[in-house]
């Protein structure tokens, strides 16, 4: 049994044929070839698969593709404006907010949800805001610094927001 699913991913409309059991993350990675969204665990703990679905950060390993039917998904590949970088991407680069880079896409997507709701978070609010995302490389210190920096940049309005924010 398969189902038809319509998804708008990073502004592009797709129609997919999926098994009901197919997870959104697998639809994104396998069917659409957007491999920036990662799978790091099997219990919804690590957050490497975080995307924004209809604006809200979700763990795409814990959403069925059929549940997302008709929805708008933004993945890490959809964050940057044409030819540039989103403020979060730039801040992660500037502040050395990544090492192996595996958790980074999910971390940036979770951070984008946080900053959408709280444009000027304290360090403590940032640390709690990324509680659904695990990083094993950085000890989180430079991730916190990067999100703080991106918040400041976004508040100043100097950098255009992402294409599909």
């Amino acid at each position, binding site marked *: 049994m398969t189902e038809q699913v319509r998804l708008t991913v990073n502004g592009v409309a797709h129609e997919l044929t999926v098994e009901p059991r197919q997870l959104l993350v697998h639809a994104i990675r396998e069917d659409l070839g957007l491999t920036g969204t990662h799978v790091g665990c*099997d219990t919804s703990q690590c957050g490497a698969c975080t995307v924004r679905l209809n604006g*809200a950060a979700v*763990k795409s390993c*814990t959403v069925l593709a059929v549940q997302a039917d008709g929805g708008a998904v933004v993945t890490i590949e959809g964050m940057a404006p044409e030819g540039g970088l989103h403020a979060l991407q730039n801040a992660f680069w500037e502040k050395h907010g990544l090492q192996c880079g595996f958790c980074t896409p999910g971390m940036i997507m979770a951070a984008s949800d*946080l900053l959408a709701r709280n444009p000027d978070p304290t360090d403590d609010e940032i640390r709690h805001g990324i509680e659904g995302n695990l990083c094993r490389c950085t000890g989180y210190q430079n991730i916190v610094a990067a999100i703080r920096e991106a918040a400041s940049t976004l508040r100043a309005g100097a950098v255009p927001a992402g294409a599909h924010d």
Partner: protein
Amino acid sequence: MIPAAFDYARPDSLDEALKLLARGAGNAKVLAGGQSLLPLMRLRLASPGQLIDIGRIAELRGIRDLGNGATGIGALATYRDVLDSDPATGNHPILAIAIPIIGDVQVRNRGTLAGSIAHADPASDVPAILLALDASLVLRSGNGERVVAVDGFCHGAFATDLGEDEILTEIRLPASPAGVGMAYCSIEQPASGYSMVGVAAVIGRSGGTISHARIAITGVADVAYRAKEVESALLGSDGGAAAIAAAATHATDGQTVGSDFNASAEYRAAMAQVHTRRAIEAALAAID
């Protein structure tokens, strides 16, 4: 990581969903946010033959202001929806205190209170919160609707009063007595973030004595429970430190305290007392 195959249905109306559920004859599971069910299915610890996705049923959405301080939380209302809802958090401030410690941002964006109580995880914070608020649950089947108290709804770990043909459509929170304070105190198992012990307290004081007390505890036993011995010890007392401490010693009276490799029964029992005391103190401090 990949669930076993299942049949999928996404009805547009509650009636249709109830028909499908009746036809599923115990082999079907209701899917709302999926934050409890899908992880189990991915590990193949649950393999239902059919999922009935109620996510598009408009009448299950939203949070209703029922007037006079009462609130209805639809089956599809996520934790995030509740946090963003003025009637919910304004009338029942414990929601704004306790929900931010449930899961994480992504889970709160998808997960629902109704899904959590229907799942009946003994470590979930939701049952304790709803018990302290004297919530009732609206259960619908093809045969009609019944409204049950949340107290008694959960029978055991992952077991509830919900019939195989029933859908939990709404959580109803009655108005809280005037002038109560609310608090939630917990200690988490670090890996999962679930509460080893969580205590919800709704406390009122009148004329120098405790006039209202609802204390509910999760994580300790198979089922979250109202700590009625604590409540009765507290009611009528002066709410001073000695009275609170004395009342808190009854936190696990009559309960079989659970144990696992994270925490012994002895520890859970002790933490139930500590967090009961802290929750009562915090609730009293929250009274305007």
